[in-house]
């Protein structure tokens, strides 16, 4: 009754049952898992709590083993009160900061929710927790926003990929940005159609994004990228809510992402064999870290 795997199907269900995207998604999960509504909701609430803890820990600025990240979110936090003529709004800056904090915690072996993946795990909690702080949304509404985001992620997983090994970063950060943009839009009472416009606008603007992490670690450019794309997700939501439409509907943008995944060379699909990973700096860092492994060598 609540089955969907495309945006088209999801939209039809929202109309048929007069529900927001989150409502259809919640009922989908209840239907297919056979678990109670309370159980499903509490599982999602648990994930929000873990994300909030993760952000707190990330702000505590511990350096990762490689030293490449740790302290970035803290730097942003310290600078916030003194930046003159800031270009981002305060809430956007905080979203950026929290997204980065989450992934700095990840890089230090902290506990996170891989939503949709570990590498892109900062974007959704970054934006949702920032707007909750700034605009006072209740936990109940944030939980719904998470279900909204998950519905978008499900569509991408079913029709393309969420894995950078297959689709590059457009699959991970692209997905998380689209999910965040849609979730933000439902929070402000945007209709399912407007949510999907936001998701389309976000995903479109990550197409072709490479996964070329330095030394193969989930740190550079990943951590800061979560921040930059948290801000972008908010941009897409503002555009959609203002009434701007995506010329290409979401299902087709997802297929475009899939198409590009198929054309994308493996060197920029999480193999660290191209792009940033093979710059002079990138290789220097890689070699430095490789010497850490020397003591194991056969």
């Amino acid at each position, binding site marked *: 009754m609540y089955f969907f795997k495309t945006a088209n199907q999801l939209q039809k269900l929202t109309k048929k049952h007069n529900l927001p995207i989150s409502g259809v998604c919640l009922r989908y999960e209840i239907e297919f898992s056979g678990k109670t509504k309370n159980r499903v909701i509490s599982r999602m609430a648990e994930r929000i709590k873990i994300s909030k803890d993760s952000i707190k820990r990330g702000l505590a600025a511990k350096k990762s083993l490689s030293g490449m990240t740790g302290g970035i979110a803290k730097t942003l936090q310290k600078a916030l009160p003194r930046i003159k003529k800031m270009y981002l709004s305060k809430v956007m800056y905080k979203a950026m900061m929290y997204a980065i904090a989450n992934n700095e915690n990840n890089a230090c072996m902290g506990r996170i*929710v891989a939503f949709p993946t570990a590498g892109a795990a900062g974007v959704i909690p970054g934006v949702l927790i920032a707007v909750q702080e700034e605009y006072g949304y209740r936990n109940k509404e944030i939980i719904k926003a998470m279900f909204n985001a998950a519905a978008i992620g499900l569509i991408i997983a079913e029709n393309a990929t969420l894995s950078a090994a297959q689709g590059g970063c457009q699959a991970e950060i692209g997905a998380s940005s689209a999910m965040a943009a849609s979730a933000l839009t439902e929070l402000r009472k945007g209709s399912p159609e407007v949510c999907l416009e936001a998701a389309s606008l976000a995903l479109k603007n990550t197409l072709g994004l490479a996964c070329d992490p330095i030394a193969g670690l*989930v740190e550079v450019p990943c951590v800061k990228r979560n921040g930059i794309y948290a801000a972008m997700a908010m941009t897409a939501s503002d555009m959609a809510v203002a009434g701007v439409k995506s010329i290409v509907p979401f299902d087709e943008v997802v297929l475009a992402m899939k198409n590009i995944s198929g054309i994308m060379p493996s060197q920029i699909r999480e193999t660290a064999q191209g792009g940033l990973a093979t710059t002079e700096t990138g290789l220097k860092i890689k070699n430095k870290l490789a010497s850490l492994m020397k003591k194991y060598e*056969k």
Partner: protein
Amino acid sequence: MPLSIFDIAGPIMVGPSSSHTAGAVKLGQIARALFHGTPITAEFHLYGSFAEVAKGHATDRALLAGVMKFRTKDLRLKDAFKIAKQKNLKYKFIIEKQNPYSHPNTVKIYLENKERCLETIGSSIGGGNIAVTNINGSEVHFTGQAGKYFSIIVSHENKPEVFSVITPFLTKLGIGIINIQTSLMAENGKVIRIFDLDNKLTLEQVKEMEKLKGIEFVRAMHKVSKS
């Protein structure tokens, strides 16, 4: 099978990487479950990208943590080396320069104690998904996902009447079977099956299941130390 929303919003894991950390924990857990005992020694041979970035991704700690039955989200993963020493588990990591296996994130896990030894080969194929490809020299093919499902590994005689008692046993306990994977073990003629369940079995239930005729062993892959 339709995806669960929690396949998207999850797993809950200790970072940094779903393939090199969470997936590695799962591979360690499976090796331990198959071992059917408490290992005294654990030797890990790392191939491909596992060999190159193991330290930065804490793959070494993750594998060891899995062998010690930690869950994917257990924060003690960071302290896996220290905890292994406390448990008198001797461990060794070997970087293999060549990778003869088809997947870039592969590990050969060798566990041993006074009574038995076990070698498993598995790969982390992305996003927390893993595949086990060899058990003690026998080619198998099992897949799994980090942080997902309560699974049991059952080894039993390759007879249909043995298999046919397993499902009713689980159904009577109110446990649903989500998926069954099967591999024939050439060397001893037994069948190994992984049952992905929708709920846990208690230790007593596992022991009861082991008493069924023709069952060699049942290992639960979720019965882990408290975190």
